């Protein structure tokens, strides 16, 4: 009878090999290949920078205090606002919670539902993104919130270790130089009716406070700027309705969802204001073909006006002020790093005025 005091009779077989030599060779070849890949990545123009992971966002969200100044929204405030300038101008170090390719509403709701929070929110309002009822934009926001609310000790330590590597290794670029992204670069014939427009390539660097800066290669005319610029129209065009839902039913459901979102945003703002908090909506600069698409698809008189009216919150629309509309986003959607500093300086007086209301 096997017992806890008897010896165990199962022993796994170990293959006969020269294991020490094999492991040394594996480590040597892997090290050489890794260094070679790093050199290649740097030659392509990649530099070490943090990935905008859900962990990094969760870490910033945790830094929010009851009276914090938080930036919420999409990639535009992420690129266009300088944290140092905002701190000098508004007297508080802002916390950057904007996330590229996301809908601002879930994060806005999360902050306003936080009973302890009575600070200030600068919220970017890209109409088509703010009212997205579902899909990748919402999923993106829900993913970061889920991480924040269920952030484990193991994930925190993994994040700290990961940042130390990302700050020194250029090829650690999620969605750009990882295996999946590399496989996606293999040309294959498309299958009709499938696939999503590809996201933009790497064109910004990120620090631990999630301050994102456009890299010079994108700020200057060239292939990278062209590639980013030409990618926006497809990304900003809503996908067609699903074939399995009648169009009128789909449109009716969309209408209901949008109305609900208007109501939810107004309720969120009211909740924050009832606790003494403040919020200002901002429409950031855009240009070129992208501006035409957004103005046509979501004209100012529609969503922007309705949200401001329903919520009673102040709004700053860049086109209303010559000093804010004087900037030309190099790839039509975001400002270059130097321009973002100047833009923030010019925005501060407007923010002060709006928040004083």
């Amino acid at each position, binding site marked *: 009878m096997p017992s806890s005091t008897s010896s165990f009779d199962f022993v796994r077989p170990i*293959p006969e090999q020269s294991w020490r030599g094999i492991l040394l060779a594996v480590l040597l070849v892997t090290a050489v290949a890794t260094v070679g890949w790093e050199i290649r990545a740097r030659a392509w123009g990649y530099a070490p920078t943090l990935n905008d992971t859900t962990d990094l966002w969760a870490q910033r969200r945790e830094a929010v205090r009851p009276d914090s100044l938080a930036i919420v929204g999409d990639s535009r405030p992420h690129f266009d606002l300088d944290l140092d300038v905002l701190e000098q101008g508004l007297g508080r170090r802002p916390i950057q919670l904007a996330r590229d390719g996301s809908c601002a509403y879930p994060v806005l709701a999360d902050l306003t539902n936080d009973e302890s929070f009575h600070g200030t929110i600068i919220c970017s309002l890209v109409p088509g993104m703010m009212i997205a009822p579902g899909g990748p934009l919402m999923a993106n926001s829900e993913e970061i919130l889920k991480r924040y609310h269920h952030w484990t000790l193991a994930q925190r330590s993994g994040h700290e270790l990961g940042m130390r590597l990302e700050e020194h290794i250029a090829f650690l670029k999620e969605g750009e*130089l990882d295996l999946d992204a590399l496989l996606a670069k293999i040309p294959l014939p498309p299958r009709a009716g*499938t696939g999503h427009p590809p996201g933009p390539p790497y064109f910004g660097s990120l620090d631990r406070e999630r301050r994102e800066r456009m890299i010079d290669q994108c700020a200057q005319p060239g292939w990278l700027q062209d590639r980013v610029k030409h990618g926006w129209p497809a990304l900003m065009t809503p996908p067609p309705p699903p074939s399995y839902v009648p169009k009128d039913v789909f449109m009716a459901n969309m209408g209901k969802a949008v109305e609900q979102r208007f109501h939810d945003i107004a309720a969120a703002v009211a909740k924050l204001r009832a606790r003494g908090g403040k919020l200002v909506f901002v429409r950031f600069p855009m240009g070129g073909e992208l501006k035409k698409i957004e103005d046509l698809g979501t004209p100012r008189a529609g969503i922007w006006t309705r949200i401001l009216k329903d919520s009673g919150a102040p709004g700053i629309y860049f086109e209303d002020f010559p000093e804010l509309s004087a900037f030309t986003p190099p790839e039509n959607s975001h400002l270059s790093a130097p321009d973002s500093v100047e833009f923030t300086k010019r925005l501060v007086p407007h923010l002060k005025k709006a928040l004083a209301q």
Partner: protein
Amino acid sequence: MLFNSLTFVVFFVVVVSAYWALRSWPARKNLLLVASYIFYGAWNPPFALLLFATTALDFFLGAQIASAQEPRARKAWMVASVTSNLSMLGFFKYGNFLLENTQWLLARCGIAYSPPHLDIFLPIGISFYTFHSLSYTLDVYRGVCQPTKSLRDFVLAVSFFPQLVAGPIVRAADFLPQLVAAPALRRGQFYWGLLLMTLGMFEKIVLADTMLSGAADAVFGYGGPLPALDAWAGVLAFSGQIFFDFAGYSTCAIGAALCLGFHLKDNFRFPYAAIGFSDFWRRWHISLSTFLRDFLYIPLGGNRSGPTRAAINLMIVMFIGGLWHGAAWTFVVWGLIHGVLLVIERLARAIGGDAPWTEALPVKLLLGLATYAGVCLTWVFFRATDFTTASRLVHAMVGLLPHGDPLLTTRALVKVGCVSAGLLVAHWSLRDTSVEAVVAKMPRWLVTTLWTLMLGAIILTQGNGNAFIYFQF
């Protein structure tokens, strides 16, 4: 913490270094115990207390079973252990499921009842460690193993970090004897452990997460009709994903244990080369199927009371097996379909016997492919979140949907096709042998190349990875 995380890499290097630096065996066991609780507590520290409480209770009950003189008393202590373990599992895992079904049942009887939704956070790996712990009291009761006198050893046996949260379900009777004396590393054991860990992580990070999960998520998350090609591709993707995910975890666990001097049994044996469903269950999640066989099927009477009773016993076992995986009727249906298939297979064998023609290679291949297709079809119920999705997918797979929206890109189809074909070829090539036997025959340069490629692919994949599918069970 996850195996596929930087945290675990650092944790493992520190633990292994300290473990082999210590000379005293009790000190090493203490170190492993602390490390295991850190490993588990890194998810949610309070749940480590729950793990300890469960373990300590079974330690006490095991001693009571062993010391009881009367059979009735032994049985009572055993029932107490089963009840306490299953109650805890039932509360955390099945509480809301039971309430929802009670509500549904009462509504059918015309009684309006609105149960409160219990905001219960499921402790990770609870199904695994409950079975680890329960196997001890059951084996003591059966007289298969004697109780240990060391609480420390028993707590370590249950919480040993390589197998704690996602198996294999290592029985205390298999692990406790290994804690008696300090293990000695055999030649190459540490390196082989490292290679197995690399293989397991490659299966999880590269094959499951990078190559297959996207197609599986897209197809199972789609709300509309799909062409047969997309439906099959999504289901094949999930079939591969769940194998690489779970077998990858088990392989990592076996490798990590080897590096520490311990020996865990195989949990998978090339299941997609199974010929028949009974063969499949001898190759898939072996530690669970043997647990259910020894502690449920045989006590129910097994096949000792005739074919009808054996069929009922099989259905009961597969019902429980399905429910073990999750609190949803889709899992139950998955288990029951497997039960029906097992019963049909037994009937076929009883009628046809083991005719010589069934041993011909083409017949074996055909039967193997039919088994694989059947297993894939059952995965639909395992992965789908509801019966509507499952039904739509099954209809699409058998070509009963007239129209469908193409969903997967050429790239996704190629990825699923290549990995699935590679998986089947590998399983059929290895079905009657073992990885160890194959590696032993490989030239050194080939082992080096394969190991380097796997490590390189893991580094290229980047990121901290996703949780293993079986964690939720």
